[in-house]
């Protein structure tokens, strides 16, 4: 069975589409800013589906008017972590929403080995399953 048929991890929005270009990312950011969202940038080298909280790259950016600010920060994140996963997230601060409403990956490593399915035999004929990223065998920082 193939756990990673497309050769790239699919998380968040647009992940089944070809990679977004910078111009397309800029349009998405502008759309979010128009809705009053606050953008933030996060990165990780452990894209396990259960790894909800990635590392923050700087503070969430409130009160921005133009996508250029987010793009500047994204450029500096890409420079710092060229082969990490980087995602952009939009936070909607509307009362009672107060959560992330957009999230998409904007940078990924050259080679994504994907995940393996581990089966653990437990009492009787039961089997427990777990998902394990091949890349996460290596220590943090040298995975991709």
């Amino acid at each position, binding site marked *: 069975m193939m756990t990673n048929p497309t050769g790239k991890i699919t998380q968040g929005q647009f992940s089944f589409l070809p990679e977004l270009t910078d111009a397309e990312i800029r349009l998405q950011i502008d759309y979010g800013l128009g809705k009053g969202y606050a953008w933030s940038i996060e990165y990780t080298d452990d894209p396990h589906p259960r790894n909800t909280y990635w590392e923050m790259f700087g503070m969430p950016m409130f009160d921005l*008017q133009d996508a250029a600010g987010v793009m500047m920060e994204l450029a500096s994140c890409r420079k710092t972590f060229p082969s990490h996963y980087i995602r952009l997230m939009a936070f909607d601060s509307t009362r009672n929403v107060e959560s992330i409403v957009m999230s998409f990956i904007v940078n990924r490593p050259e080679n994504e080995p994907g995940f393996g399915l581990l089966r653990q035999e437990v009492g009787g004929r039961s089997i427990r399953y777990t998902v394990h990223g091949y890349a996460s065998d290596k220590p943090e920082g040298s995975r991709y």
Partner: protein
Amino acid sequence: MNAPDYHIPGSTAVAPAADAGPHEMTCARTVNEVLAQSQVESVFDELERDLVGLVPIKQRIRDIAALLVIDKLRINLGLAAEAPSLHMCFTGNPGTGKTTVALRMAEILHRLGYVRKGHLVAVTRDDLVGQYIGHTAPKTREVLKKAMGGVLFIDEAYYLYRPENERDYGQEAIEILLQVMENQRDDLVVILAGYKDRMNTFFKSNPGLSSRIAHHLDFPDYAVDELSQIAQRMLTQQHYHFGDGAEDVFRDYLERRIGQPHFANARSVRNALDRARLRQASRLFSERDRVLDKADLTTLVPADLLASRVFQNPSS
């Protein structure tokens, strides 16, 4: 990046939407067509109507606008038009309208399509410089990010550099500012403002900053006529007016006040009018039984102005 092994219908026809901006005005061939499309004329009219005096400033704004319009025509004909550097420095005495013009500048540049959003972010030293090591860079960058697509207005910019303290973090803020001013000049316009002599000292100690600012605009002091016009407009806005003889008294007041220390042009006018309003209020307040009609409530009489300190001490 890995190419996906699947095909999405229609995915090959991804239209590059990035360069939609310049093509909006493809058809414009004459100055009038560009002006009609950008509606910059109405900003000029507002400028002429709302701002008293400031002739050299208005002229410079017209020059800049003309350059941007011509650039637009050049782009339409496929000629190279490098985005001009529009960072500015406003110098002038207090109350000469630096902030007001900066606000207008943001709107004009937006209408001409030079900045994308046209908002103004006004900051001072406190918003840029941090309190401890490593605090300044993120703080400055955050302000710059907020200002992108618009105009960053740094009031009293000379406070950024404090030569008496060699470990002052202001220098760090200036360096980040310089970098962004140079590399992302189509993303934001920086306007520095301050009093003339102190800005000159500031630029002397930061030559890199001075040379990156193309437009040094000096705001002249207002003449008595202009100040009196400004007073009329302020009063009209607040639904007041000068009673019989009050305007002449006010001109007399201005002539005396200009000679005194700490005269702050339009700001002094505003303060003088505010104090006159106070005196008018207490004058009306003391007549408990009088029926006050609209004229009473909106008129400033000479007595309200003559009570000022300026008239009581003629020697100064």
